[in-house]
């Protein structure tokens, strides 16, 4: 049986701001089609790790491979130039806590922005694809309105469509539901659930423990910039081994379904 190489491979990754080290020597593999949930208290480094995967934060040391592109960091490695960084990021989609839709564009223009301005896809094709994606996230009826007229949940679904429009190899979610009113969380989690089911490789920073348990196949618990515990999602959430994981999970009431 030939072992398929992981889609995302993080090796000995560290990140420091001056003397303050926020990620310590982290290694993590995500298989093709896998979904990993990063959980942990705020300040544990989980968002920083996620932002390192598409190089919005530049790691201080270590290497990151996404599919066939490898980036090395450290004193002996040259810092990647702008074009190289852009090319790397174009293959990873990212969804942010604060949506970050472009207010100077309509909903559909947001979704077309990547294909049009990065991949230079013809406008007609970009538009057709954007409509299809908006339909997939249930937002096709809002294609021509300004993002400012949408609810948080709607904005986040558009942001997901915008990231998908680049046909990324992996999707990164940075607390995608943390800024939403409780009754709007479900619609966004639903879209994420569908994506995972469709075989998208995903890394999700989340405070939704039920979602981590039910949708992710692996859960990684981080604290103080270290990976404290990682394992199959159900095991880590229901039966944590490490004291710090137990302590953290005690703050959550994870309903059964």
């Amino acid at each position, binding site marked *: 049986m030939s072992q398929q190489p992981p889609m995302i491979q993080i090796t000995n990754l560290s990140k420091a701001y001056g003397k303050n080290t926020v990620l310590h020597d982290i290694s993590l593999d995500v298989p093709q089609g896998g979904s990993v949930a990063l959980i942990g208290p705020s300040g544990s480094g989980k968002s920083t790790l996620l932002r390192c995967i598409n190089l919005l934060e530049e790691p201080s040391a270590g290497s990151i491979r996404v599919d066939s592109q490898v980036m090395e960091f450290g004193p002996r490695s040259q810092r990647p130039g702008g074009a190289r960084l852009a090319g790397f990021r174009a293959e990873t989609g990212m969804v942010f806590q604060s949506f970050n839709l472009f207010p100077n564009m309509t909903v559909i223009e947001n979704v077309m922005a990547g294909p049009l*301005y990065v991949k230079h896809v013809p406008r007609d094709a970009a538009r057709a694809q954007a409509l299809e994606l908006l339909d997939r996230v249930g937002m096709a009826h809002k294609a021509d309105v300004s993002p400012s007229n949408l609810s948080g949940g709607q904005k986040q679904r558009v942001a997901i469509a915008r*990231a998908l429009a680049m046909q990324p190899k992996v999707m990164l979610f940075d607390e995608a539901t943390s800024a939403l009113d409780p009754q709007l969380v479900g619609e966004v989690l639903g879209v994420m659930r569908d994506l995972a089911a469709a075989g998208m490789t995903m890394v999700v920073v989340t405070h939704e423990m039920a979602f981590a348990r039910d949708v992710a196949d692996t859960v990684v618990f981080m604290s103080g910039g270290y990976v404290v515990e990682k394992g199959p999602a159900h095991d880590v959430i229901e039966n944590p081994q490490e004291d710090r994981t137990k302590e953290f999970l005690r703050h959550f009431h994870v309903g059964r379904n």
Partner: protein
Amino acid sequence: MSYQWDFGLVWHYAPLLGTGIEYTLGLTVVTSVIGMVIGTCLALCQQSRMWFISVPLGMVSEVFRCTPSLVQLIWCYYALPIVLGITLSPMSAALLALSIYGGVFYGEIFRAGLRSIDPGQWDGARALGMTSWTMMRRVILPQVLRRMVGPMVSQTVLQLKNTSLVSVVTVPDLVYQGQMVASATYRPLEVYTTIAILYFLILFPLTQLSRLLERRWA
């Protein structure tokens, strides 16, 4: 008070004031355009992570921000030619001083505009794989430019009024021409009243236009 106002004599010299208006408007347009170019470069360079570019430029712009434009103008006209061993016509000195002076302030407006954009916009654009240039052109600038209209117009209004300083180095702008007319007619009160009205008539529509644009883009 028995001063007899007499604008008739001023009217007689209207063509002289007309020339003054042409110089004032011409200087404003040219120094504003050059100033905006300088300002854009300053703002973008000061964003630069390379300190040997951003620090010296920051210092130069502070020198121009913290000295009066009249002093800069006189310095450019009298001192700069000696320092560089060249001759500068009054017009060249005026263009030079006013363009840089304007540029420094346009630069500040532009910088404040860039800073006012939510950092998430940069993240969003980068995450899609945009290069710096594409991000600026498609995401950041369209948002910055709308916010900048008001301050840019205010600065251009100041820029136009600042052109009155060039009369000191004998460039025949509206004020300089006014001085000529005043000394020819011995009617300074009428002449300066006329000049004030002319400045107002030029600038008032401009400030109203900017109000309109701001309301439309708000």
